């Protein structure tokens, strides 16, 4: 039986999560990676997406708005400016934010402004994805 990973998700506002997990799956800026116990030390930049982690065969999710992931020994630390667990996400707000950003994007011509709205869209998408993954899991469990 391999050891467990101690996953920490930290933002400037609070410690979002501190938990023993079996594995962590995250999307780095160049692709997805999975961290199992006794991983080699690694530091990677994360993209705006969902981090999935397994606790006793059960998968949970957190929306991460970019950041850094460091694995060292069996400590996995995610440092991000903003991070939310799937249970905390306000779905209605994320939908609204997405719609608003998409509407704004069509009106913007400046490259920088388009980029900013695209970032907003991807943040909203990451949140929605975390929620959706959670719902799918729950649905699967019920049936």
């Amino acid at each position, binding site marked *: 039986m391999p050891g467990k990973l101690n996953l920490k998700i930290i933002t400037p506002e609070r410690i979002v999560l501190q938990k023993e997990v079996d594995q962590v799956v995250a999307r*780095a800026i160049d692709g997805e990676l999975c961290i199992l116990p006794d991983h080699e*030390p690694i*530091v990677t930049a994360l993209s705006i997406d969902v981090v999935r982690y397994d606790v006793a065969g059960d998968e949970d999710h957190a929306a991460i708005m970019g950041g*850094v992931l*460091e694995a060292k020994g069996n400590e996995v630390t995610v*440092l991000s400016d903003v991070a939310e667990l799937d249970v905390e996400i306000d779905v209605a707000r994320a939908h609204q934010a997405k719609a608003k950003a998409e509407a704004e994007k069509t009106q913007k011509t400046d490259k920088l402004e388009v980029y900013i709205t695209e970032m907003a869209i991807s943040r909203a998408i990451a949140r929605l994805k975390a929620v959706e993954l959670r719902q799918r899991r729950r649905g699967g469990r019920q049936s």
Partner: protein
Amino acid sequence: MANLKAIRRRIKSVQATQKITRAMRLVAAAKVRRAQQRTLAARPFTTRVIKMLREIVRDTAEIDLQELPLLHRRPIKKVAIIVLAADRGLCGSYNSNIFRHTLERVQQLEKDGKEVSLILVGLKSVAFFRHFKLTKHRTYTLLPAVPTVEEAKLIAMQTAELYVKGVVDAVELISTHFISLLRSELVNTKFLPVELPPPEVHEALQPQILFEPTIQEVLELQLLPKYIENVIFQSLLDASASELAARMNAMSNASTNAQELINTLTLVYNKARQASITQELLEVVGGAEALRA
């Protein structure tokens, strides 16, 4: 009696002052709680970022870091000091402590033959250093009472720019570390270049850290900006919490002093009143005696 009137007026004025200091204490007390929470909540993140960056810089060969201007070390000739002080006064020795420490540091650096310049935060620091012949790169004033990441970003980016362009070779940060409501401590942080942890004996067979995709990208896009932003952000938070705590203590002392003063004055006033009444009685009795005789 003129004296009585003067004392009465004095009591009134002290009472008015006390009302103000009491109100200021309450306001500071209400704000400090929030500032304290935010400061403490931000700390784990900042310490992690600093630790991570130091470990990486220590464990990587220098050649890999060469392309990152922010980590570039060069002989230190010109030093900039960021002075984090308050916008407002009436907070005890909070500001003057910072200034005294800054002046000491400036003298020390100048003795070592370094060129010193300043980056000032807070109206009070601008007012204090106005008459000093030191280069001031930038001044930031009227920050909100509870600092946000935006201000930190602005200060951090502009300071980093000075460093990258070679205007300065090192940046130090003088600010206040918040310990508790009654204690805060002056700290002098070496902000740039990134300070290395004390050299440790490397364990044999220590696995090399992998970087995905490359060390440059990880550091340049994520870790370094986070580092410079959060060191400043944390200092701003610490400073605001310390300032409010200092103001709360100063105002609480002031209110107590005012109360003491009022008590003493009331005593003097009553004595004087009693004396004047006795005096008048004596005069009346004396007059009556004189008439009867």
